């Protein structure tokens, strides 16, 4: 039998945006529940085993959350939703959470674009490597190649080195010019202090080479990755390695918004400056509305929480939001995947990992629905979250339609999805 809960405001996602939203809504007097899939709060960027390892901003926000009246549902996945109600699975139990206002703060995931050998074991995402290290992966003495794009690269490299890894090199696919332009935009923004962080991270992994305009062309190995081929336009070369951390930036986790009927721009949930989506009573904040970094996520979360809680965000907060949105746009421009990253696939390169669909099984003119029906690409366990995003980037195909279960759920739990639709 499903447990039922109700609140004024339900926040989905326990990263910076979700925490800020829950704190703000609760402070506004709204009864608030924060739902998070992870076993600990913090989302991806503030993933931790011990709070002491987190930056001060994060620790303070977590303390404010603990001190607030907001309730925390940990290890709970949203499997279904309608405006006004979320259906969660926590452990084996089904929870029906009714809430007049829903704030979606589901963050972003890495854009994993296929390349030859990307399915070899020990090829992780960039954030994936960091998540694993924070969850206890022992990287002492391991040779690691890190190749990706965007601000995430630096703290991940620093984390790896701090945990004893031998980081062979760090490759940023954006050009030096694009990086420089972004650096200037950063300086001009409220997040200018991040440049200091960037320098600190770079110093932390100073023994590793940092290349711009460089990416992974292929990975090779038998039972696991043994070496990668790097390319920079001018030259290619091989690096033997034990682990690879590679991705092509981030894409918003907009699926819950799609399920609720919210308008999206690509993967991102569309919001106005009050963080309202196109569906009344549904808000969204942070990376799920467009990748924009931690500072913007904190501001958007605060705005969403205030508005959902029936308050009006102050002028300073809104001004900060505008400036940080401009920075987010600069970030998107600077770190957009270069065309070489979209052209690495060979005929035998796996595109859909869940169903083992090769590149040569797909025809560009099909579109995602026909591809799914002919090859089953996108029909597997991840429901197109990896290959759908890749094909959207590579071929402009539509992202998959989202239906329940949004996260995999047991048949026993499914049998309790019994509200009228």
């Amino acid at each position, binding site marked *: 039998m499903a447990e039922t809960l109700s609140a004024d405001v339900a926040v989905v996602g326990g990263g910076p945006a979700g925490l800020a939203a829950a704190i703000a809504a609760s402070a506004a007097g709204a009864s608030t529940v924060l739902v998070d899939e992870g076993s600990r709060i913090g989302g991806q960027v503030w993933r931790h085993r011990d709070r002491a390892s987190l930056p001060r901003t994060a620790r303070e926000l977590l303390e404010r959350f603990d001190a607030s009246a907001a309730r925390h549902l940990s290890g709970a996945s949203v499997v*279904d939703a309608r405006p006004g109600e979320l259906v969660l699975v926590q452990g084996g139990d089904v929870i029906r959470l009714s809430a007049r206002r829903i704030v979606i703060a589901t963050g972003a995931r890495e854009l994993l674009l296929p390349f030859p050998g990307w399915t070899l074991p020990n090829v992780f995402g960039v954030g994936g490597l960091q998540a694993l290290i924070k969850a206890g992966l022992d990287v002492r003495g391991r040779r690691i190649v890190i190749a990706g794009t965007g601000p995430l690269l630096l703290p991940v490299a620093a984390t790896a080195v701090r945990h004893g890894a031998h980081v062979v090199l760090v490759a940023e696919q954006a050009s030096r010019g694009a990086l420089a332009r972004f650096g200037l935009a950063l300086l001009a923004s409220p997040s200018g202090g991040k440049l200091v962080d960037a320098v600190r991270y770079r110093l932390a992994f100073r023994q590793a080479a940092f290349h711009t305009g460089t990416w992974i062309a292929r990975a090779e190995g038998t039972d696991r990755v043994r070496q990668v081929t790097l390319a920079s336009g001018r030259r290619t070369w091989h690096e033997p390695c034990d682990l690879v951390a590679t991705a092509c930036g981030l894409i918003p986790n907009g699926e819950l918004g799609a399920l609720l009927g919210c308008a999206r721009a690509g993967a991102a949930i569309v919001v106005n400056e009050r963080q309202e989506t196109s569906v009344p009573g549904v808000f969204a904040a942070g990376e799920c509305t467009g990748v924009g970094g931690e500072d913007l996520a904190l501001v958007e979360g605060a705005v969403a929480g205030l508005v959902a809680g029936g308050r009006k965000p102050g002028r300073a907060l809104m001004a900060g939001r505008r400036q940080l949105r401009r920075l987010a746009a600069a970030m998107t421009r600077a770190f957009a995947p270069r065309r070489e990253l979209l052209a690495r696939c060979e005929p035998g390169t796996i595109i859909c990992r869940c169903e083992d669909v090769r590149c040569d099984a797909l025809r560009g003119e099909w579109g995602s629905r026909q591809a799914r029906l002919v090859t089953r690409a996108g029909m597997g366990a991840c429901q197109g979250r990896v290959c759908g995003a890749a094909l959207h980037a590579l071929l402009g195909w539509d992202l998959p339609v989202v239906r329940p*279960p949004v996260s995999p759920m047991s048949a026993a739990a*499914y*049998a309790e999805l019994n509200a009228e639709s």
Partner: protein
Amino acid sequence: MTGAGRPDVVVVGAGIVGAACARELALAGLRVLICESAFPGAGTTSAGMGHIVVMDDSPAQLALTALSRRLWQELEPELPPSCEDSRPGTLWIAGGPDEMHMVREKAVAYAEAGVRTEVLDATALAAAEPNLRPGLSGALLVPDDRVLYPPGAARWLLEDACARGADLRVGVRVTAIEGGRVSVEAGSGAEVLTCGAVVLATGVDAAQLVPGLPVVPRKGHLVITERYPGLIRHQLVELGYLHSAHAMSGASTAFNLQPRPTGQVLIGSSRELVGRDGSVNRRIAADMVRRAVEFVPALARCVTTRTWTGFRPATPDSLPLIGAWRNFPGLYVAAGHEGLGITTATGTAALIRAMLAGGNPPVDPAPFDPMRAMPALEAA
């Protein structure tokens, strides 16, 4: 078009029924043009379970499904891996002892149609299907029932048709049918094609081109699980399935489980008349899954990954429309197959071939006459 001259037949719709008809007509030496508005199998063909199952809702259905299954069996050596053809058989399950007489009656009816079956008592049923809940009385095993992957099968049927001279035009929507003429809209603009005959195989859309054709969409839900090879070995159906398939009003669910070659378990089935609303009805889908868990308790811990809906093309008397629509000279209908479109695609194609290219129909076509008297269609 490749060949010069007008086609003998235009087949409208490249779902499994259109594809099978096109292939049969091409085999008969006719010049065939297939017009498909989206892509092969884009409609109901890609939404269903892909079962090939003998059903005895009526003598006509029994005859058509038995014939069709035999024809699929004959095709089996030619089917490529993309058809994912498998032969798990079907178990028609008797919930209680009062249903065992239905099992025995069914066995007799199937035997008369030349279909091999075996009556299983409770012990034999538990041995055949260990994960079924205890307390069931028995079942009818139909060992030769099959499953395949309909989009793959439709594509192969079309490829084979084209290898035998048929022409397939995709992205071409037929907008009007008259005697000897078909109006189409393609990317390049509107055209009028002359032809000998037309076979309308557009499933749930059939009434759009031929107003008055008694075909309505009957919505179904399906849920699929992750891979659990060996959880069930046969297709499992409760005997009450036929009652659900009969009823033309209201919503109903009937227990139906299918093992796919991948090891995934497909959970069905539901029926309702709600026009073209394809949204997932949580109550119906949950009810369907709950019923499945009641029959196979081990399913409870299995992870479900997807839900989807589809529309069966249903007729008021549960039999398809196969034959001449005599209000329109030269128009033949091959539509309205409800939940048996995959199964009876082959039998339908054989009937259509006999009608257009001559020869004895392999079963009596009269029950499928599109002009037959029908009970009134109930409003959705």
